[in-house]
C-alpha cells in the first residue's frame, strides 16, 4: 500500500560559501489522505526546508516526494502554501488576492457568478467577508493571515502546506485562528502539513505530530499519534490526562532529547554558540 503523500528519504544539501551544508538527511514520512500533520522542532532544524520540498519550491538533493502516485517536480496549486508572513499581494484587495488564485486554478470551469460566490464563500470561512475590499495594509496581521488561508483553501488543494501560519499573531488571535482552522478542517477534511513552534497548537490540531531532530542533517526524530476525539475543545482538554501526556511527550522530546543550548548567556562560550545559531537561523 502506498501513502497519499510519500516524503521518501529526502536529503537536502545547500551550497554555501563555506562548503556544502547538509540541512536534511533521510527525512522519511508517509501521510494519509485527510490527515493533519504538525512539524515541530527547534528553530533552524529544517522544517521550512521540508515544506518547501513538498511544495516543490526546493528540489531535494536526493530522494523525492510522491503525491497521489505522481512525483512532485515543481510547485503547483494542488499543494497550496500558506506562507509564514501571509505573502498577500499588497496592491490587491483581500477579494482580489483570492480571486487571482481562483481564476488561475479554476479558469473557465467556473462561471463569473460561481467564481464570485466561491471567493466570497472562502472569505466567509475565515470570517473575512466583512473586509473583502480592504487591501493588506488596511487590515491587521491576523486578518492578513486569514486571507492567506482563504486563498490557499480556495484553490481546493490536495495538500495544504502551512509554515507557522499563526507564528506572528498574539495569543488571543492565535487561539481564535486555531479554532477557525479546526472548524474548517472538520468541514473540508483537508490533508494538512503545518509547521509550528507551539506545543499546545500541535497537540490541539494534529492527528500526528512529527518531531524533528536538530540540524545539521536533521531528520524525523519521533512521530506522536494524537488520538483525541474531535471536535476538540481547548478548555476541556486542559484537564484531559491524555492531552497532558501528549503535551509532555512533545516537551520532553524538545527540551530533553533534542535539547538546544538556551539563549541565557551564562558563559562566554554559550554566548558564542548562540550567536552562531542565530546567524544560521537568520540566514534561512
Amino acid at each position, binding site marked *: 500500500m502506498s501513502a497519499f503523500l510519500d516524503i521518501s528519504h529526502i536529503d537536502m544539501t545547500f551550497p554555501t560559501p563555506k562548503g556544502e551544508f547538509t540541512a536534511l538527511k533521510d527525512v522519511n514520512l508517509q501521510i494519509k489522505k485527510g490527515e493533519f500533520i504538525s512539524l515541530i522542532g527547534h528553530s533552524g532544524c529544517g522544517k521550512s526546508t521540508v515544506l518547501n520540498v513538498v*511544495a*516543490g*519550491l526546493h528540489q531535494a538533493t536526493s530522494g523525492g516526494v510522491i503525491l497521489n502516485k505522481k512525483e512532485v517536480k*515543481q*510547485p*503547483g*496549486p494542488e*499543494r*497550496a*502554501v500558506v*506562507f509564514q*508572513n501571509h*505573502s498577500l*499581494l*499588497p*496592491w490587491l484587495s483581500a477579494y482580489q488576492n483570492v480571486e*487571482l*488564485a481562483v481564476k*488561475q*486554478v479554476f479558469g473557465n470551469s467556473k462561471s463569473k457568478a460561481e467564481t464570485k460566490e466561491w471567493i466570497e464563500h472562502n472569505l466567509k470561512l475565515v470570517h473575512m467577508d466583512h473586509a473583502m475590499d480592504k*487591501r493588506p495594509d488596511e487590515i491587521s496581521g491576523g486578518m492578513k493571515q486569514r486571507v492567506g488561508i482563504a486563498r490557499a483553501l480556495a*484553490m481546493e488543494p490536495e495538500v495544504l502546506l502551512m509554515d507557522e501560519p499563526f507564528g506572528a499573531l498574539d495569543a488571543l488571535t492565535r487561539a481564535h485562528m486555531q479554532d477557525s482552522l479546526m472548524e474548517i478542517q472538520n468541514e473540508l477534511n483537508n490533508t494538512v502539513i503545518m509547521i509550528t513552534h507551539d506545543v499546545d497548537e500541535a497537540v490541539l490540531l494534529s492527528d500526528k505530530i512529527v518531531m524533528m531532530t536538530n540540524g545539521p542533517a536533521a531528520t524525523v526524530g519521533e512521530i506522536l499519534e494524537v488520538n483525541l476525539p474531535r471536535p476538540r475543545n481547548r478548555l476541556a482538554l486542559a484537564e484531559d490526562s491524555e492531552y497532558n501526556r501528549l503535551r509532555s511527550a512533545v516537551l520532553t522530546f524538545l527540551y530533553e532529547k533534542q535539547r538546544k543550548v538556551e539563549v541565557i548567556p551564562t558563559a562566554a562560550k554559550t554566548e558564542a554558540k548562540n550567536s552562531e545559531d542565530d546567524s544560521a537561523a537568520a540566514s534561512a
Partner: protein
Amino acid sequence: MTDSTSLTFKSTSTNPRFEAAYSWSKQIFKTLTLPAVGIAVFLVLWSASSMNIKTSLGQFPGPVAVAQQFGTLYDEHMESREKEQKFYERLEKRNAAKLAKDPNYQAKQRKYTGKETFVDQIGTSLITVMSGFLLAAAIAIPLGIWMGLSTTLNAALNPIVQLFKPVSPLAWLPLVTMVVSAMYVSDDPWVAKSFLNSMLTVTLCSLWPMVINTAQGVSTIDDDLVNVSKVLRLSPLTHVRKIVLPASIPMIFTGMRLSLGVAWMVLIAAEMLAQNPGLGKFVWDEFQNGSSQSLARIMAAVVVIGFIGFLLDKGMQKLQAWVSWDK
C-alpha cells in the same frame, strides 16, 4: 508679524478651535509665506547684483527687464499669429478669385513661413521631449523588466548600460545627426530631420535611468511574492502582468522621473548645439543676435525652461500617485 500671531495662538492653545487655527496658520506659513520670502529675497539679490554686471550687450537684466520681455515675447507671438492668419486669408482670396476666372485652376497651397515665436519654440520643445521620452520608455521598461527577470541577460547587458549611462548628449548628437541624415531619406518626410535628431538624442540619454531602475525594481521583488506566483503556476506573461509589473511600479516611476529630468536638460543642450527648433535654439539665436534685449530674452527663456522642468516632474509625480499602490 507672524511671530506675534503665533504667540497669541500658543497662549490659548487649550481651546481646540484655536489649536486647529494655530496649526492651520503654521501650515500656511510653511507652504506659502516661506517660499514667498525666499523668492522675494532672491529677486532683491538678483536685481541688486544685475546692476553691477555690465556686459558688452549692456547691463545684465534685472527681474523687471525680464518681466517686460515676457510681455514683449507674448505680443510678438500674437502679432505673428495675426500675420499668419492674414496670409492665409489673402491666399484663399487669391485662389478663389483665380478659380472664378478659370474653373480648371489648381489652387496653390503655400505655407506660411514666418519665424517661429517664443511660444512656438516652447511647443516644439515640449513635443520633442515627450516623443523622445516616450520612445525611451517604450524601449527601457520592457528591457528593464527582462533584465530584472533574467540574471543572464542582466550580466550580459549591465556593462553596456553602465558604459552608456554617463555619456553626455553632446557626444551622441553628431553621431545621431550623421546616422539620421544617412538613413532617413525621403522625398516627403513625415517629420523633420531636425526633430528626429533632437528626439533620438533625448531618447539615447533618457533610456538608462529607466533601464537601471526598472531592472533593479524587478530583481528585488520579494521572494515570497515570486513563490506565490510559482505555487499558482502563473504563466510567464501573467507573472509579469500580475506580479512583476505592479511590484516594481514604484521603482519604474523613480526611473521615469529621473529620465524625464535628464530628457529635458538634454533637449535644451541638443537644440542649442544643433540649432534644431526649440527653446535651445531660441537661446542660441538671441545670443547670436546680440541686441540690447537679448540677455533679458535669454533670461526669460531660462525661467521658462526651469518652470517647465518643474511642471514635468510634478506631472510625473501626479501620474505616479495615480497609478501606484504604495501611497
